[in-house]
């Protein structure tokens, strides 16, 4: 039986700002602009916001900074920062708080000027003393180590990794808002510069600027607002390690724990899902998460993606915005999984719109394959 939280709340507004390049603007300016856009999209006013959820790479106390900047006085707030998956966790926290009546309108928000401020992935804020002598370049080193192990254990090849990037680009080419567009072949990926074996520049996500936000309310109120609600159907998080050296099995992520619990809360299974949004900071992520979330058997992720299964007109729609690999990745990408899922559930995705999209899975990842949070969203038809 589905959980009591299923369908009790919904996302009613989404907004972005400065995705791609936003020179001259700060992280919180982008966050605030995206937040105001999401609130307006919901047909609400800033003063309606009484729940605040935020995590950024630049703020130690994100909800304090955001509440002050926007001038809101939230009754409930949560600044959980588990990396890029924080926003999927915030969906669950907001659903709980809204359902319990602790707040009535929840804003979940993010902003970063990572591309124009430095042009590099922001590294772990907390160096691990037992790792630093070996000069790992996290997060890339950690994901490269996981990829090396997956290749060793399951025969996954660099060409299979490349096909993840090729599929993402093919979707990006259908999305005018995607930052990286244009032809990209398997050979292009294989010929690109090696950064950390086996990952090349094309196996690694973009570094962009961008703000993103969404607004959640209880389902009864959602039905009276402007857009088709994207109902929160289920969500769950799992975290098993901080440092890649402590990951129990480099080929099995905690998505294998968060996924089943999110599906159970929603009373759904993999064949019900129309859209799969996966945190593809690196090509190996997509393969690992397809396996761990049950879309293919463990070890088969590479072969699963190698026949165009996740490209446009494939068997499974994955990362239809172009993903972190080709659409947008301002340091923490999790918010943008949600924004694309809502866009598809509303039927507003233009040329890339799926024929049928009633159930979307968003899977966030944070740290170095460390925190895993799965959320299921759905249209009216999913209730």
């Amino acid at each position, binding site marked *: 039986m589905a959980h009591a939280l299923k369908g009790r709340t919904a996302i009613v507004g989404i907004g972005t700002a400065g995705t791609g390049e936003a020179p001259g603007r700060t992280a919180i300016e982008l966050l605030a602009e995206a937040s105001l856009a999401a609130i307006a999209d919901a047909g609400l006013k800033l003063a309606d916001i009484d729940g605040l959820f935020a995590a950024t790479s630049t703020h130690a106390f994100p909800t304090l900074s955001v509440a002050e900047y926007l001038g809101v006085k939230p009754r409930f707030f949560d600044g959980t920062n588990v990396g890029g998956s924080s926003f999927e966790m915030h969906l669950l926290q907001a659903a709980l708080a809204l359902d319990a009546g602790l707040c009535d309108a929840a804003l979940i928000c993010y902003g970063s000027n990572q591309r124009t401020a430095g042009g590099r992935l922001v590294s772990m804020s907390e160096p691990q003393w037992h790792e630093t*002598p070996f000069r790992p370049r996290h997060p890339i080193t950690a994901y490269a180590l996981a990829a090396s192990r997956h290749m060793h254990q399951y025969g996954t090849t660099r060409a299979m990794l490349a096909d993840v990037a090729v599929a993402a680009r093919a979707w990006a080419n259908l999305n005018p808002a995607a930052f990286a567009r244009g032809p990209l072949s398997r050979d292009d990926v294989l010929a690109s510069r090696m950064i*950390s074996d*086996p990952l090349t520049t094309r196996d690694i996500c973009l570094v962009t600027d961008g703000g993103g936000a969404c607004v959640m309310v209880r389902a009864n109120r959602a039905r009276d607002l402007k857009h088709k609600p994207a109902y929160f159907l289920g969500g769950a998080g799992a975290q098993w390690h901080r440092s*890649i050296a*402590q990951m129990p099995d480099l080929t099995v992520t905690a998505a294998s724990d968060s996924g089943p619990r999110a599906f159970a809360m929603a009373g759904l299974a993999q064949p019900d899902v129309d859209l799969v949004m996966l945190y593809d900071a690196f090509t190996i992520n997509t393969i690992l998460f397809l396996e761990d979330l049950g879309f293919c058997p463990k070890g088969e992720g590479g072969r699963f993606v190698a026949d165009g299964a996740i490209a446009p007109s494939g068997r499974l729609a994955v990362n239809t915005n172009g993903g972190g690999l080709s659409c947008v990745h301002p340091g923490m990408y999790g918010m943008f999984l949600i924004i694309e899922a809502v866009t598809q559930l509303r039927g507003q995705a233009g040329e890339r719109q799926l024929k049928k999209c009633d159930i979307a899975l968003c899977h966030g990842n944070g740290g170095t394959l460390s925190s895993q949070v799965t959320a299921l969203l759905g249209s009216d038809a999913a209730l």
Partner: protein
Amino acid sequence: MSTTADAPSGPQAQFLAHLKDGRFMIQRSRSTGRYVFYPRIAIPGSGETDLEWVAASGLGTVHAITVNRAREGAYNIALVDLDEGPRLMSRIEGVETVPIGTRVQARIVTLEGEPAIVFDPVGEKN
């Protein structure tokens, strides 16, 4: 052998002091025989605090490896499974890379002014 509990400093400082003296020591629970690395105040998950320092065999197996292609040169970073069980991050010396499964032996070197554990391939594979 000193234990973690009766020492004036914490396990991290004790480990580094051993390393400065040229010893690669790891912690083991007296009651369960389980080893842990990096050094901690208890065995993670089960919580035993009866930890003692024992000399690591220094033998291990490469579990995963990458070569960082930095502009200033390429160097590898590996995860090594010690024969005692724990896994640690390190470097395989004298080679650009080695196959996963390569047997390796620990050695203490100085990296950026501090003692650190690196590994050399020992030929044998498993």
